[in-house]
Each structure stands twice: as C-alpha cells, then as structure tokens.
C-alpha cells in the first residue's frame, strides 16, 4: 500500500470520444464494477453483520464508550496541536524559498508513506525510555509511553503531514499581489498572514484538518507500539476493535460501524466544504 502525496496531480481533460468501440466501453464498465464491488463489499459486510440495536447496545458497553470518549479527546487535542503549529509552519514553507527546501518537504511528508508499525518503532526509538530523547524527557519528568499524551503524539506524528501538505499547497496558491497589496496598505507580515492568507486559504485548511482528524482517528499501529493499550488511558477505538475481535466479534463490528459512519461523515463534510468554496470563487 502506498500513500502518494497528493498536491499537484492534475489529469488531462479528455476530449469526447465519439468513435469509442463497444468492447472498450465494456472493459470500462467491467473495471468500474469490479473496483466498486471490491471497495464497497467489505464496508457493506460490517453493516450486514450488525444491526442498529447492536450498535446502540454497544454504546452501553464500557470498553466501547471509554474508547470512543478517549478517541474523541485525543484526536481533538491532536488536531488543535496540528492547526496551531502546522499553520504557521506550512505558511513559512509556502512563502519562503531556500536551499534544501525540497529535502525538508520530503522529510515532513515521510510519515504519509510510513507503515504504522514503522511509525511506532520510530517513536519508541526517539521518545521511548531508551530512545535518543529518552534521557531529556526523563529529566523533564515527561512520560509518553503508556500515557494518554503518547497517544496524542502518535496521532500528531501520522496525521500532521496530511494537514501540512494541504495547507502548504493552499498558501502557495494565494495570489502574491493580494499579500503585497495588504503589505502596501501598512499591514505587517503577521497581519497579512492572519487577515489575508488564513481567510483566503480557510476552506483548504479546514479540509486538511478534517483529513488529519480522520487519519488520527484511525491510528492503530503506532499507538499500540508506542503508547500501549489500556482502557480509559491509551485504548482508542481502533485498539478496542482489535481487542474485541478476539473477545466479542459483534461488539467489534458495532464499533467498526461507528468508525465507518464517522469517517464517511468526514469525507462528505470535506467534499461539501471544498465544493462550496469552488462555487464561491467561480464568480471572482
């Protein structure tokens, strides 16, 4: 599986083919049907095997509710951290050019393509008790392993590149003359950033945050390896699903269904936000 960076892909607009042979139309239809079935049937399986009653009753299971609450709390903190630190960082990357920028951007985007287990090992090797920063953290009395803070660290690590990439592309796409005009009217760079760049880029920033949130919500491998799994402390919804799989398959299905619904809501919300923005800028 690869997670390809997504910023600049732009397929050519095909010209209308009037002479397309029938067999090719059949190939297209068949390939589309196979793609749809392959991607959709597993999701369907979750809902066929569970029921609304089961979903509701799983909300009464303390392991599930604790996991849902913990997931909401940790991902909210993770997204806030990503927005606060990531927005200025993405702005700097988008508006400055310097030697080695391409290398830096690649390093920042690396977690996009890292397998979750590699992310977990990397976090342990860096921030674990025996990691390269383990001594520094210990002296500062900061413990991340087996702590809720460790869950947030894992989520920020895997999810922030999604936001950084979207935000950087959005800031880079802002018309320079807009920012320059703002500067000639007496605004400081900080003022232009806050009053021009952020409002103009807001739809893309929102979409980026939603994507980052979705990724943080689904984080599994790095959390298990780095933060561990303990109910109410580090056991987020994906870890609870893994745990319930052996214990109570219907409960695992119900929790999975909840995650599917939430993820779909993120997807639809992002499409809605970006779609509205496209309409809004059409008349400009």
């Amino acid at each position: 599986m690869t997670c390809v960076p997504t910023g600049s892909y732009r397929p050519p607009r095909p010209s209308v083919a009037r002479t397309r042979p029938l067999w090719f139309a059949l190939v297209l239809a068949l390939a589309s049907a196979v793609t749809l079935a392959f991607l959709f049937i597993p999701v369907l399986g979750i809902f066929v095997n569970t029921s609304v009653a089961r979903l509701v009753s799983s909300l009464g299971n303390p392991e599930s509710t604790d996991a849902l609450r913990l997931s909401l709390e940790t991902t909210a903190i993770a997204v806030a951290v990503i927005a606060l630190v990531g927005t200025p960082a993405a702005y700097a990357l988008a508006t400055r050019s310097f030697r080695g920028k391409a290398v830096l951007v690649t390093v920042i985007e690396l977690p996009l393509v890292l397998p979750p287990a590699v992310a977990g090992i990397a976090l342990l090797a860096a921030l674990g008790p025996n990691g390269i920063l383990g001594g520094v953290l210990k002296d500062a009395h900061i413990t991340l392993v087996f702590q809720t803070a460790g869950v947030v660290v894992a989520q920020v690590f895997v999810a922030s590149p999604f936001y950084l990439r979207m935000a950087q592309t959005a800031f880079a796409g802002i018309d320079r003359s807009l920012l320059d005009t703002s500067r000639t009217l007496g605004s400081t760079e900080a003022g232009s950033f806050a009053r021009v760049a952020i409002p103009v880029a807001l739809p893309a920033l929102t979409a980026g945050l939603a994507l980052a949130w979705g990724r943080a919500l689904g984080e599994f491998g790095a959390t298990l390896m780095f933060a561990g799994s303990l109910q109410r402390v580090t056991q987020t919804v994906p870890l609870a699903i893994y745990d319930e799989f052996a214990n109570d398959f219907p409960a695992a299905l119900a929790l999975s269904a909840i995650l599917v619904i939430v993820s779909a809501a993120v997807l639809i919300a992002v499409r809605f936000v970006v779609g509205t923005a496209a309409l809004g800028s059409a008349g400009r």
Partner: protein
Amino acid sequence: MRGRRSIPLLVALLTLAACGSSKSNTTTSNGSTSSSSGKPTLVISAAASLKKAFTTYGTQFSAASARFSFAGSDMLAAQIEQGVRPDVFASANTKLPAMLYGKGLVDKPVVFAANKLVLAVPAGSSKVKSLADVEKPGTVLVVGTPTVPVGDYTNTVLARLTPAQHRAVLASVKDREPDVTAIVGKLSQGAADAGFLYITDVKATDGKLKAIDLPASLQPRVAYGVAVIKGAPHPSQAQQFVAGLVSGAGRGDLRADGFLPPS
C-alpha cells in the same frame, strides 16, 4: 483555481481511506496450494509463545513445508470462528481448543506441552526483584489482555493474592498487550519495569530479560493444546505435525526451548 483543487483533494481522500484502514495484523493468507518444491504447504496457527520452538520444528518437518501464523491464541481462535481454515491450531491453553472442539470446528485436541508463568524484568534493571515490588506505586507492569492465555493465567495468579495485594498490583498495570511478543517488546525497550510472561519467552530473549519465579502456591497450570482443524486442507500432514509435537522431533524442540512435558 478552486475547482482544480478538488481533484487532488479527491486523491487525498482516497489515499486517506487506504492509510486509515491499514492495520498491522498478523494474519497470513490461507493459501493451500503446493509450494514450489512440490510439497504441500501446511498452515499452522500457533500461539506467539511457540514461535521459536515451532520455527525450528518447521524446518525439520519433512511431510510438508510449514507456514506459521503466530499471534495471541485468542485472536487465532477468533479467526477460526470467523471461517479461517488453517490446518493446525496450537494454543497456549486448553480452553480455546476445547471451545472450538465444542463448536465442531476442530478435531479432538491433545495437550502437548506445559509451561510456567514468571514475572519477567529487563536484565539491566533492579527496580523489581520480587512480586512484592510490583505492588509499589510507580511500578510499571505490563500484562496480557484478559482473553489472551497469558493474561488469563495472570488473572489466575492475581486472584490468589490478598485483596489488598490484588488492588496494589492492578494499580501498577499500565498496559494490556494482545500477545506475549508485544509484552517482550515493551520490556526489552525498557518501557516497563515488569511483565507476566512464560519462562520460555524469557529464555528466548537470550539474556535481555530475566525471570523471577512465582511462589508455587500462585503458579497456575499452563498447558498447551493442539488440534487439527475440521476440514483442514491437508489433514494427513496436519496429523503428522501434531504427532511430532507429542512424540517426535517437535517434542525435542519444545524441550530444548524450555517447555515442560504435559502433566
């Protein structure tokens, strides 16, 4: 300008969906085709604690080329309940094979080895020298989830403590891992001060961990059960594999790694 952005966004969304769903699972595919050497491929779902001994046995097993799926026994049993069909299921307890036998999913299980639960600590650490040290506040103890055998045995041990000791030990539990491999990992990373493991897990780390014996009065009976799966793709080779564990080469490999004869 915005309209064009929606295409990369769509790609981003699809990418996200792909990334979000990738879980590091331990399942192997249930392929039953012949290997390149012409020997059939025997798929064995085995408890994570059997990894070293079974891997050795697998290289000696001549009737088939053995392929293993090592994970928590509870996870493997759940897969079998969900319709996964390996040839053999080897569990770190007798409860799970008996449960599957009761549901008609496996043939009659046999006990092929025993083990001992110990308190494992990092070799370089002197924080925990006895079970009493685990009761001290600030000790980080890692155990298995209640459904994986090692966690189930741990609960048996804890239930034999006095209520005050029981509470103190539970307060030290900072992490519940899905199998012994994960507990070994947390201990050898120095992330935890102690964990409940099998003596064979400690031996397999080649000195990275050391074992603290439990008092005999607390020691649970740790027995390993194995069964051929009903409808196994290669039943005769599966039976040979099981026979070797009870009385053949597999028995020797188990003893060499510190497993005890079934009692």
